[in-house]
C-alpha cells in the first residue's frame, strides 16, 4: 500500500512539480515529508500526517522547518561502516525526527 503512495509521490516529484515549483512553505517540502512518512509510518498514520501537513501549507500558517516525526524501533544494530540514508533524532520513547541525509549519494564525502 505504502509503495503505491510512494510511486505516486515519485511521479508527482518528477513530472508535475515543475508547474507548482517552489511554492511549499516548509522544509522539507510537503512531497518529501510525505515520502519519508510513507517510508517509516504505517499507511494510516502516513496519510494522516501528510494530510495535516498539506492542509497547513498555506498562508495562514508560519511554515519553516518541520521534520517528519515517526515511530521506530531500533533493533539488530550492526556496528560497521554503513551508508547513511537518514538521521534519526530521538524525541522520546520510540519516536524520532527523520532528517534525510542529502549527501548520501556523494562519493567525495569524508
Amino acid at each position, binding site marked *: 500500500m505504502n509503495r503505491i503512495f510512494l510511486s505516486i509521490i515519485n511521479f508527482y516529484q518528477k513530472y508535475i512539480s515543475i508547474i*507548482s515549483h517552489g*511554492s*511549499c512553505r516548509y522544509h522539507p*517540502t510537503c512531497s518529501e515529508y510525505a515520502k519519508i512518512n510513507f517510508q517509516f509510518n504505517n499507511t494510516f498514520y502516513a496519510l494522516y500526517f501528510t494530510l495535516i501537513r498539506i492542509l497547513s501549507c*498555506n498562508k495562514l500558517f508560519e511554515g519553516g522547518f518541520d521534520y517528519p516525526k515517526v515511530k521506530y524501533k531500533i533493533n539488530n544494530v550492526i556496528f560497521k561502516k554503513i551508508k547513511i540514508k537518514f538521521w534519526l533524532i530521538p524525541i522520546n520513547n520510540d519516536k524520532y525526527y527523520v532528517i534525510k541525509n542529502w549527501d548520501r549519494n556523494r562519493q567525495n564525502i569524508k
Partner: protein
Amino acid sequence: MGMTNNTLNKENTQKKILIATIISFAFFIGYDFLYLQPQQELAKQTQQKEAQALKQQSEQTPLVSQIAGEANSSAANNAPSVHANNANEIISTIKTKTSNIEIDSFGRIAQITLTTHRFQNEQHNAIKLFTPSQLKPLEVRFFDAKVNEEAFKIKAQASSKVLDASSEPVKLTITQTLSTTTLTKDLTIYPDGHYDLDIATSNKQNYFITPGFRPDVLADVYADHGSLLIKNDGTLNIVEDEDLDSNAEFVGIHAASAFDRYYATVLYNFDKNLQVTLMSNKDKSPEAFIHIMNNAKLSGYVGPKDYNALNALDEKLTSVIEYGWFTFIAKPMFSMLQYIYNYVGNWGWTIVILTILVKLILLPLSHKGMVSMNRLKELAPKIKAIQEKYSDDKQKASMHMMELYKSEGANPMGGCLPIILQIPVFFAIYRVLINAIELKGSEWILWINDLSEMDPYYVLPILMGVTMYVQQRITPSQIQDEMQQKIFQWLPVVFTVFFLWFPAGLTLYWFINNLVTVSQQYYVNKIFAKEKIARHEKHLATKHTNEK
C-alpha cells in the same frame, strides 16, 4: 570534476523538462486534430450511411427478428438483440410546449424534435434527439420468445393520430393486440414534455421496457455519455458507452437513464424498487431494460438535462445531471451559478461575478502573499547567492532559503494547499461549463453567442494569454533557474493554444481570473513602491538629524 558532472546533470534535467513540455504540447494538438476531429466527421458519415440504409430497408420486406433462432435461456439474453428499426410508421404525433413527439407502430417514441429556438444546431435546424437505428424509448420486449417475435410483427394502434399537449396534459393509449395477450400503454403527456405511463398486459406476462438508447446529439470525449441508474439509496451507477463487457443486473433501482452531454431519456418511479438489466449492445454500450410483471406505473422524461425542469418533476431526478469525478464540488458550484443567474439573467456576467466573488474570498490569503513576495524582491541578491552555492542540490538550497526567510521574518511561498485546491475547483468549473445545458446557446456580449462553444474569433483565448503574460511580468519572480524561467515565459503561449478550442465560458472564467490577479498585483506593487519611498525618506531624515 565534480563540478562538470553537476552541470552536465543539470543540463540533462533541463533538457528533459523542455522535451516533456514540448511532447505533451504536441500530443494535445495532435490529439485534437488527428483524433477528435476525424472521429467527429466519421460519426457524421456513419450517421448518414445508417439513415440511407434504413431508407432502403424500409422499402424492402420487414426484417425478421433475430431472436427466433435463439434459445430462451435467460431473460437477459432473450430480451435484446432485436433491432426492429424498420417499419418506422408514425402512428401518433404529440406536440408539447417544447417538443414534438413521434410514436411509431411498435408503440415506441421514435423521435423527439426540440422546437424551441434555443435548441437549434449549426444549420439552424431543430435538434432531433435520436439516431434512427438505435433502441427507442418505450420499446417492449417479452420474456417469452414466441410472444416477442410476434410483437415485432404486429403493429400497435394509437387512440389518436394528432394530439396537442402544449397547454394541458393529454392522454394517449397505445394498444398492441397479439394472439396470446394484449399490451396497453396508457400515456399522459404533459406540456413540459414529461409523461406518465401505465403499462399492462391482459394476462400474466414477464416483459421489459426500456428508456431507450441515449440521445445522440452531442456525445464526445469532453463529457461522459452512457447509462445512469439512480438506486433507492440515492447513489448512482454510471456505465459509460463502450464500457459494458457483459450484461449486468440491478435491483432497488428508482430511475434508469441514458444520456449524452446535454440530453437524457429517463424512466423513473421513486416509490417503487425496480429491477433493471443493463445490456451490452454491439458497441458494448449499455442499454437499460426495466423488468415488469403484468403491469407497472412509471414516469418518463426525454429532453435537455435542464436543472429546473428536472427539479420540477422530482428533486431526486436532478442526479441525472452528473459531472463525473468532481460532482461533489461541481454541484454546489452550479447551484451558486444558478443563484447568481437568477439576479443577473445572463450566464456570461454570472461567470464574471462568480469569478470575482471567489477571488474576493481568497483575497486575504493572496494579498498577504503578494506583499511578502514584494519583500522578497529586496532579498533577491542573498537568494541568488544561496541558489548559486547549492545549484546542484535543490533540497539543500530550499533549506538555506528557509533559514533566510526565518531570519527575515517573511515566508513568501504560497503553500501547497492553494495549488492542490485549485485543481479540483478548475475541473469542477470546467465540467459545469461543459455539461450545463443552461449555457447552451446562451450569449454574453458582442460576438460571444454561445458560451458552451469555442470563441469563433479566438478573442477570449488571446485576451487570456495577454493577461497571463502581464501577470507574469508584474509578479516578482523567485525562479532563478534560467531554463525554468524560459519555460515559464512560454506558459502563456501554451495556455492560449490550449484554450483556443475550449468553451468560451471557461476561457472567460480564466481571463477574468487573470484580470483580477493582475489588478490586485498592480495595486500591491504600487503601495509597496510608495512605502519604499516613504521608508527611504525617513531614513534620509534620520541620517540628516544624526549628522547634525
